């Protein structure tokens, strides 16, 4: 196998972290080969050791981790082969590889760049270290790099600081930095995870183009199967430090050999279509009186930011309304306005009570709000922050019940029943949240939300903190509760696949406004607004046979009314 096509060969790599509890085997016998000019994706859920694998190659694993065993053979430009695993991590030899032959980009472009140094300085540093290029020559090269990564107005950008850039631009700076010495290998450690999907598409495009023009090999670490399908030539699937499967991208997606891979692909593919339970449900009559009728809702923060701008929407009884949008679109703020966590300045939130009367929640008084908040509940995004660490699970679930006047043995009984309902063992009621995993904590949050028999639940990114394999489980639980309790949901998410799986109708938000509303199928298959089209076309599709983000549609709000430029490779 190993011929002169292989630029990096890793064999039986073991990277361990000694901890108080014992040795944590982050990477446990990983082998792979990276071919010249090709892209190898390392995919796995959190904790699979994919990131440590990448860092082991450059010997920049954080303390106390260290390489126990294995080979990391790099074929240098002159044809000689060096085993990087044998080099002293602080020594000169490994340093001459870092940044020069193998460069790396990271997940969080903000924290991965120094906030107090100008970006030009940070990019130029590698040139000084490896080639001794300084002064004007360095500046000229940095400008050229900034042009290559398509940063607008490089002449001024070069003297700016990281916090003056947006997330996507920061990642471009990182890439420029990595390209400085024309490396043979680029290691990209989840470079798009912190970015919005449209920005992600831009960055993936950029990496692809630069790879072709520079003839680089790319080792791409990600947890997103869609991204893998879009860019990979070969894939290794990792789970708990071990390689489960290794092969061409086509094989991984369409003929997976390993059980874990199959499950992983399965849970991704499952989210590519409508949930099965929803197919059998009767249709919600369009003329049914809406449960929630929001009209022209607006909220401007003290800073002058118009977070919610003239939003109108309705939620019908028994339906799930999805709110989709990228970060900064105002979707979370909007969701919080519905419960008056924030006070919107204009508009109306007409909520229909069980007795048929309607109240305007925007202007409702404290007493009414208190009552309505038992009927309209919330599920939070962060499964850690939304549960008080100082209360037992029993106390957390009992809190809304107690405040609603339930007490004594009835309270005990209700808590046990709620725990069973969300799939938790009632015997765990004395435990504290720290004893539960992320998925279990989210179930506790759901139990708290349904404790007082609500009618409408606002779920804010309820599954985004969870790994993909748990996501559909959580959504299925929410839908079965919907059937049992006759709930309606306002489901806020940035993830179109989750929306498609779960929601009857969807509203697309962009910079505080709702740009499009409609039946989910219709919006997904035939988007009307350009932003929706751009958003949908930027989503990586988990099928290597259908790569499409390079053909995507771009939305530029400054070019109105047609407002479009087509993506050109």
């Amino acid at each position, binding site marked *: 196998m190993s011929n002169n096509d292989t630029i990096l060969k890793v064999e039986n790599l073991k990277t361990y972290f000694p901890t108080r509890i014992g040795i944590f085997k982050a990477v446990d016998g990983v082998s792979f080969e990276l071919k010249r000019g090709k892209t190898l994706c390392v995919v796995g859920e959190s904790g699979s050791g994919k990131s440590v694998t990448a860092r082991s190659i450059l010997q920049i694993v954080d303390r106390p981790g260290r390489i126990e065993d294995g080979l990391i053979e790099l074929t240098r430009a002159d044809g000689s082969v060096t085993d990087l695993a044998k080099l002293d991590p602080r020594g000169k030899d490994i340093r001459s590889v870092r940044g020069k032959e193998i460069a790396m980009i990271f997940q969080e472009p903000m924290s991965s*760049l120094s906030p107090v140094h100008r970006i030009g300085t940070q990019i130029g*540093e590698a040139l000084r270290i490896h080639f001794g290029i300084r002064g004007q020559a360095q500046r000229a090269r940095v400008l050229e790099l900034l042009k290559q990564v398509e940063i607008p107005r490089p002449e001024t950008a070069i003297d700016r600081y990281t916090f003056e850039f947006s997330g996507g631009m920061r990642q471009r700076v990182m890439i420029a930095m990595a390209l400085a010495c024309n490396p043979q290998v680029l290691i990209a450690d989840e470079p798009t995870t912190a970015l919005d999907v449209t920005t992600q598409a831009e960055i993936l495009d950029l990496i692809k183009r630069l790879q072709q023009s520079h003839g680089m090999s790319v080792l791409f670490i990600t947890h997103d199967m869609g991204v893998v399908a879009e860019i990979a030539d070969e894939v290794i699937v990792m789970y708990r430090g071990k390689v489960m499967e290794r092969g061409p991208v086509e094989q991984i997606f369409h003929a997976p050999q390993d059980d874990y891979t199959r499950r992983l692909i399965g849970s991704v593919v499952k989210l590519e279509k409508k949930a099965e339970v929803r197919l059998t449900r009767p249709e919600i009559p369009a003329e049914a009186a809406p449960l929630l009728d929001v009209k022209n809702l607006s909220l401007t923060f003290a800073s002058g930011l118009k977070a919610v701008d003239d939003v109108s929407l309705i939620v019908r009884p028994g339906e799930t309304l999805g709110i989709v949008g990228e970060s900064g679109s105002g979707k979370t703020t909007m969701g919080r306005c519905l419960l008056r966590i924030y006070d919107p300045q204009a508009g109306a939130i007409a909520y229909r009570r069980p007795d048929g009367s309607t109240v305007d929640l925007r202007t409702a008084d404290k007493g009414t709000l208190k009552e309505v908040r038992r009927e309209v509940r919330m599920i939070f995004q962060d499964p850690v922050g939304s549960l008080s660490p100082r209360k037992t699970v029993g106390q957390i679930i009992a809190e809304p019940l107690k405040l609603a006047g339930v007490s004594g043995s009835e309270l005990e009984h209700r808590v046990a029943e709620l725990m069973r309902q969300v799939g938790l063992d009632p015997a765990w009621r004395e435990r504290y949240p720290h004893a539960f995993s992320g998925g279990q904590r989210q179930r506790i949050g759901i139990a708290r939300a349904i404790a007082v028999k609500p009618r409408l639940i606002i779920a804010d990114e309820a599954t985004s903190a969870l790994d993909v394999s748990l996501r559909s489980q959580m959504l299925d639980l929410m839908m079965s509760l919907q059937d049992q309790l006759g709930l309606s949901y306002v489901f806020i998410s940035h993830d179109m696949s989750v929306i498609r799986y779960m929601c009857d109708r969807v509203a697309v938000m962009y910079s505080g406004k709702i740009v499009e509303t409609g039946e989910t199928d219709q919006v997904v298959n035939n988007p009307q607004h350009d932003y929706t089209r751009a958003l949908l076309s930027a989503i990586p599709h988990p099928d290597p046979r259908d790569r499409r983000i390079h053909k995507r549609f771009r939305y530029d709000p400054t070019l109105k009314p047609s407002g479009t430029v087509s993506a050109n490779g």
Partner: protein
Amino acid sequence: MLRYIIKRLVFAIPTLFAVSIIAFIIIQLPPGDYLTTLLADWASQGGAVEAGTVAAMRERYGLDQPMYFQYYKWMWGILTQGDFGISFELGKPVTELIWNRLGFSLLLSLLTLCFVWAVAIPIGILSAVRQYSISDYGATFLAFFFLAVPDFLMALSAMYVMSAWFGQSVGGLFSPDYIDAGWSFGKLIDFAKHVWLPVIVIGLGSLAALVRIMRANLLDELSKPYVTTARAKGMSEFELLIRYPVRLALNPLISTLGWILPAVISGEIIVSVVMSLPTTGPLLLRALLAQDMYLAGSLILLISVLTIIGTLISDILLALTDPRIRFQ
């Protein structure tokens, strides 16, 4: 940047005003006024006081006026003529008494600050980089120890050690020959020979605090992702350390100047009393004990103003070194 400096300067004005009020309140706190004390003194010595003299003095010091007017009069004198009032006890204008001593206080504090920073930063770096090593534990324990020893105790112990073990008497900033001499090279040498001990004694407490802060800051910074980025560029470990985490760890250290400075000045005052240095400390104590309130109030005011100016300078320094603050 200019806007930031102007903003800070404008913010400093109410602070200065408040400090002047506090100083004035301290002047007014003792029951009765100095004149009453003086009259009682004279009376006990059997001297008769003419009513006219008393009235004249009352008017002179504005003692018969309402409180706010006295304050106004005092401030007006300071702002327009640099007149801080009269030391009742010594019968001289306050200004005549304090400038020289204030100069030495300032000099001593500055020297101490330099010493503290120059020593604390390398020890803090060493302690953080070699976390959990013998030297880290040693530095940590010493830091805790020096934080637990009050300044004056340190001064007394130092004086005891110097006299009992080295047979040297310590005190003052100059040998007797040089006290009244003009500045010369010899005097400078003599000054250096005297000043090092007070500088160390005043500085040790703050030094210990700074070592702890530098260590904690640096440990924080060392685990940040940008350190890994720089390492992945191929930078040597030493250059990396100095250019990135140390550089960033210094920013919060600069902001500690805001409280290190008051601490050093406090320490300077009390140590000066113990070691009888020609600074504001002994003068302030004497003025307070004798209830010579204009002198005491002026000293407190000036010391506080110096501190506020120092804090202002540290704010501006911080903005210079940290673009995040500058761009806010």
